């Protein structure tokens, strides 16, 4: 009962609730790196609430696709939030699907986002959309391969099973390490952070994600922004809870959950910090250098698989 009702709600709450904070944290740290005070940690929350209360301006060119997109994106991410082990390794909605479903749900969101970007008939939307698709299709195989590595090691593609397997599988094997490295790069690309995309730019020709959502406003923008925050958090969650499942509660005891939550926050914080460091120490690479970057991660993933097969 508790497993079926409480835990899902808990997960949703954690993901939905914490995700803006992560964004805020990254921004804050980056500001610090740039010797600014920067906005407050909770600035994203303020933005979201503000946006949610605002009315929207919608392009007259746009069709129902444009209006449906925010909901589709948001909900697809929410479903994913159910499938990812956040606090406990036993994911309630485990039977619903596995990491492949997760990846393709991301694809669903992206699909509609890009459609909506084309829907308004502005050139910037098109730029953003086509670049987004290009990058994501470069990223997809690497992601899939690194996930495969973990899946084959743990003998399942269901995230919770993976986590459980990893809990027992103490040391970090070279295969896993390579896969981890690959996944990190992919996550940076998928979440649209520097050096792949610059979330702060609004200079037309460099926009990718921002370009797509240029026409959105009001609650639509809010939903999409929130969805992207959650996407980042979920990717990080997958990363930390499958590769480094330290402290993830295997049972459902209340203290266990508390402890694992603490661990979770720490790990996420660490990776958020990592992202911040990367972002403030690297420059955004040229668009057509990105394939090389992702190619590298693909090669890493292939190596991961091979090493695993050779070793085992």
């Amino acid at each position, binding site marked *: 009962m508790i497993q079926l009702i409480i835990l899902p709600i808990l997960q949703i709450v954690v993901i939905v609730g914490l995700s803006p904070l992560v964004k805020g944290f990254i921004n804050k740290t980056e500001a610090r790196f740039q010797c600014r005070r920067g906005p407050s940690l909770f600035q994203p929350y303020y933005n979201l609430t503000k946006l*949610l*209360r*605002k*009315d*929207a301006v*919608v*392009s*007259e*060119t*746009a*069709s*129902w*696709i444009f*209006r449906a997109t925010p*909901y589709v994106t*948001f*909900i697809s991410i*929410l*479903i994913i939030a159910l499938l990812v082990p956040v606090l406990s390794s036993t994911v309630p909605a*485990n*039977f619903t*699907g*596995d990491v*492949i479903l997760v*990846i*393709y749900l991301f694809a*669903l969101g*992206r*699909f509609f986002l890009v*459609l909506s970007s*084309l829907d308004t*008939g*502005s*050139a910037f*939307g*098109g730029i953003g*959309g*086509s*670049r987004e*698709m*290009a990058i994501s*299709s470069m990223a*997809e*195989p690497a992601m*899939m*391969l690194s996930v*495969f590595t973990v*899946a*084959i090691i743990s003998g*399942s*593609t*269901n995230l919770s099973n993976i986590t459980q397997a990893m809990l027992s599988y103490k040391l970090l094997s070279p295969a896993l390490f390579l896969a981890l490295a690959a996944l990190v790069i992919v996550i940076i690309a998928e979440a649209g952070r520097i050096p792949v995309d610059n979330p702060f730019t609004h200079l037309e020709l460099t926009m990718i994600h921002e370009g797509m959502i240029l*026409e959105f406003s009001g*609650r639509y923008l809010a939903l999409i922004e929130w969805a992207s925050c959650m996407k980042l958090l979920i990717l990080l969650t997958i990363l930390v809870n499958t590769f480094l499942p330290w402290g993830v509660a295997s049972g459902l005891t209340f203290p266990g959950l508390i402890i694992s939550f603490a661990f979770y926050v720490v790990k996420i914080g660490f990776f958020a910090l990592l992202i911040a460091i990367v972002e403030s120490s690297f420059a955004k690479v040229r668009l*057509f250098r990105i*394939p090389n970057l992702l190619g590298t991660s693909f090669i890493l993933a*292939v190596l991961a*698989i*091979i090493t695993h*097969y050779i070793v085992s």
Partner: protein
Amino acid sequence: MVEHLFIISIILFAAGSLFALCFYRWQMLGNYISLILAAIASCFNIAIATSVLFNHSAIRFNFLLYHAIIKYSFLIDSLSAIFILAISVVSFIASIYSLGYTKLYVNKRDTRFLGFNFNFFLLSMILVVTANNALVFMIVWELMTLVSFFLVIFEYENPLNRKAGFVYLFMSYICAVFISVAFFIMFSYVKTWTFDFDSFRYAGDVMPAICKNIVFFLVLIGFGIKAGIFPLHLWLPLAHPAAPGNVSMVMSGVMIKTAIYGFIRFYFEFLTPCPPWWGVIILIIGAASAILGILYALMEKDIKTLLAYSSVENIGIILIAIGLSMIFKSYNLMALSSLAMVAGLYHVLNHAVFKSLLFGCAGNIYYSTHTKNIEQLGGLIKRLQITAPLFLVGALAISAIPPLNGFMSEWLVFQSLLNGSNIPSVIVKVLTAICGATVALTGALVATCFVKAFGISFLALPRSEHAQHAKEVPVIMYVSMGLLAGLCVFMGLFPVKIMMTVNHASTELLGVNIAKAITSYDWLQTKTLQTNFSEISPQSATVFGLMFLAITVGAMTLINPGFTKKLYETWTCGISPEPRFGYTATAFSKPFRIIFSNLYRPRLEIKTTYSVPKYFVKSIMYISEITPIFEKYFYAPLSRYVLSISNKVRWIHTGSVHMYLVYIFITLLISMLAIRW
């Protein structure tokens, strides 16, 4: 009973084609009658297929009308039944779709031959997958080719269509030749002058390895041409767009699947047991076709050509599954082999459904705008208000977006690829993993491709007069498409039903029933798929999604009840937006053209003309085209070579009688000398 149904359906098809032919004055009437008959016959065939599948009863016919030495024998086992199912469903939809689509040709051209060939086309496909005799198989196989050829060149005034038709004919003749030779070689070991498939079954046991390998390659090339695998796909992107919409729907949806049927028949029945490397080759070819097919589709501006290339890609995915199944089989991992086979057949059905849907919608677009070039389209979502969502469903399904059917088969393919880790040989293991990555890349590219297809042609502002004045198509056309869209959703939401259906065939082929192993119950107490790797329940995912939707919408309304939307024009740096500002297909796929430039070898050309003072540009022309590698570097040189040779040889007919006598004289002398040895 069922036998009679089969014969009746054949008769109905034949009658339909004759009806179409004999009405000269009221062509439309004849056409309607023939199409309706075809639809009824297809329903019968669906009934046959289902009964065969669920009663586990193979049906045999031996028509007494026999040939010099051959009997006309047909067999419907569960494998044939699966394909009959796919073919008949699509045929049914296509027939009722054509009721509307053929209006395009009323009083413009002679529709009699259209109806005639169309019926025969459907019939021949059914016969192909049921033929139980080599000669009969070849006959119906080529019958299929011929009628589809005539359908391809139906609009023969257009030289492009003629070229397409001829290329198609040449290629499929070569294909027929290869298959026949394969039959000959097998026959030379079986040596029963009936050419019955029953005698070929398990001919693999009596054949030496080398012959089996030769036959393997012959079959690979032979059926490969029909299936359109790289680099034998040449005809496919030409022929499918050339055919009328209702036909290309059938061609791309199911005709190329008959080749898959051939592969399965040969590799799983005739040539067993087969060495692992066969499967590996199939796997690699599948992966290559998938990736290259979609990469070329990505560059296309003609929507039907785009769809044709994506058929190549889907065939690739099916072949990946088939190849895996072969590999597992050769390593005697029967359960896994069966899993892969199920994945493959499932994808066969899926592709049949959503590709027909997409081609149908493309047909709708052509019907209402008279153009297939998506650069000319745009903004159709406001004009074809029902076709648009249908096309969207198709696009989502083919991009394997959950919870539509494409996703389920792709998921199964992934599962079977993951199971590659059970294969003893390391290289094959790694290969399967890399194939997994390939499938992932393909998936992403497919998504891109269909985002482009839908976005550029339906969204933004119309970019031409055609698109501007597009009208919604006749009801019957989008109703039939609606049926297909419904199927897409259904097959996505209830995968177990489909899987069970498909499972009969794989069980019969491989002798392992994995029905129990790969189903379980989720909290909704609906059956869900599960493999030894994972489980998935699209229903529950959907239910969760709907719940979240309700919650979100509710929350939104709570937070801001008086939410209003203000319509305003798109921001385009202050100028009022024009159609030309919108992104075009070429622009959209530009990043890929750059990333994969050494595959595409794009040719760029920018012509700038200045007005009289050299400072003002009058016009800039931007030409960008990609080189189709195989056409340029393989097929063209080959044909040029042959022609030059024959031109050189033709001098021997000098026209001088003396010369001719010399030939005879020389022949005489040489052979007189020769016979002394």
